[in-house]
């Protein structure tokens, strides 16, 4: 995408019928680190790659609990993501208070999408620069939605957003037909394997990812590092020789040997703006 004379503000159409500012906002989502969601008939798993600003800092929180039955994973401008998560929590709790009943996921995402749409039609606002994977459970079953800065939302069986999400999507596309009937454990395993795809060569460790689950009779919660590592151990054929291997340690079965092919490790993106995670 190149600069042009129609991209200065969000209320200007291009002659080909595009709103460039909205599309630029969607670019911001692609810069954030990967977030993945999958659902089965009864469970939804949200997983993300932990990215830290530097070795000294802790990693950004990208998955938020909205309610016992709804969770959200974000990619893009985390500040925008945080604000929208707060909005979702507010809507959810207001509904629970008035009706003593959990808010259905479909209605929450529509409200979220309408909120995003407003920002695409006001000259004094800018679109939210964050993509949200909203996973939840309601009367009509388990759902996974993707909310876009454009104000669109789509329902998915599985989806990935953020940087190098295409690798994860390829993996998910191969396997998605089995997800609906998947067991909880298999779903978690698939999520972690999809995360591994986005790391492209870097060793998969439980410290690098965050995984959350919700399901029938299982309120939203995060999996602890131990449980994640256990799942990793089931498919990592050779355990790492050195614990802190650093970047570029190849996995025996992966063909992607990271030997100076100019790949960036998990935290080496120089061209990512500090506010995007």
């Amino acid at each position, binding site marked *: 995408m190149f600069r042009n004379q129609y991209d200065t503000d969000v209320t200007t159409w291009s002659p080909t019928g595009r709103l460039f500012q909205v599309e630029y906002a969607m670019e911001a989502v692609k810069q954030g680190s990967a977030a993945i969601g999958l659902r089965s008939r009864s469970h939804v798993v949200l997983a993300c790659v932990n990215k830290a600003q530097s070795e000294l800092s802790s990693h950004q929180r990208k998955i938020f609990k909205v309610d016992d039955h709804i969770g959200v994973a974000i990619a893009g401008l985390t500040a925008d993501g945080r604000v929208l998560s707060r909005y979702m929590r507010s809507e959810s709790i207001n509904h629970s208070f008035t009706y003593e009943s959990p808010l259905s996921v479909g209605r929450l995402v529509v409200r979220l999408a309408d909120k995003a749409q407003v920002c695409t039609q006001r000259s004094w606002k800018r679109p939210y620069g964050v993509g949200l994977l909203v996973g939840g459970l309601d009367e*009509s079953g388990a759902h996974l939605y993707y909310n876009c800065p454009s104000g669109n939302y789509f329902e998915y069986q599985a989806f990935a957003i953020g940087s190098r999400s295409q690798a994860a999507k390829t993996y998910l596309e191969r396997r998605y037909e089995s997800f609906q009937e998947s067991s909880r454990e298999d779903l978690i395993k698939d999520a972690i394997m999809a995360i591994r795809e986005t790391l492209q060569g870097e060793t998969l460790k439980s410290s690098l990812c965050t995984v959350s689950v919700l399901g029938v009779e299982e309120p939203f919660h995060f999996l602890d590092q131990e449980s994640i590592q256990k799942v990793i151990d089931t498919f990592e054929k050779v355990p790492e020789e050195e614990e802190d291997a650093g970047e570029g340690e190849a996995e025996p079965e992966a063909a992607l040997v990271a030997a100076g092919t100019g790949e960036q490790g998990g935290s080496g993106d120089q061209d990512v703006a500090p506010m995007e995670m």
Partner: protein
Amino acid sequence: MTFTIPIENGDAVKIAEAESQRTLYPYVTGTSIVAIKYKDGVLMASDMGGSYGSTLRYKNIERMKAIGKHSLLGASGEISDFQEILRYLDELTLNDNMWDDGNSLGPKEIHNYLTRVMYNRRNKFNPLWNTLVLGGVKNGKSYLGMVSMIGVSFEDDHVATGFGNHLARPILRDEWHADLSFEDGVKLLEKCMRVLLYRDRSAINKLQIAKITEEGVTVSQPYSLKTFWEYSSFHNPTASAEGSW
């Protein structure tokens, strides 16, 4: 509604007008509602009277209405406030339908919504002068609850409003049991309504029984109960209480 009249204490007029906007006492009222859970859902009974003080003025008021697909609302108290509540619920169910997403408000949600409405009005010293009974069935589960004009709300297997609390509930406490058949449920409700007819002066002998099941709501045609006035204590009512009338 408020227009300024050029007098010294301008606020007094506004306050006086505001006073007349609050509900202070009821005018046209309905008497008891009695409702029970039974095998297939909920049964509710009410008479069709609207009293204007001590005058039995209106004799064709339906005090039970279907709400959405899953609920039945019965009301005693001020009839105009009941109509207002029906308007609120109409708007609520309309918006619920407009989502068109397969989800719908069940009896529990409606009950809680009404509790919020009643309690908030009470806090503003402008109550809706009703006691509401909300029954329904959704996904096989029966629900029966009550909300009063001050926002007191609860669920139970059998509920009644007004005089029904004093005359009908003791009967229900003794004779209600789970999984009543439809015929037994109606018989039980008629027993309660008969006692109310004898003893509640604002009751009239024209009642309806409504049932709500998973299939939906049916409100019966109005009918009358058979009464018997030849009890010996009716002949000489003051026999055991000299001096009373």
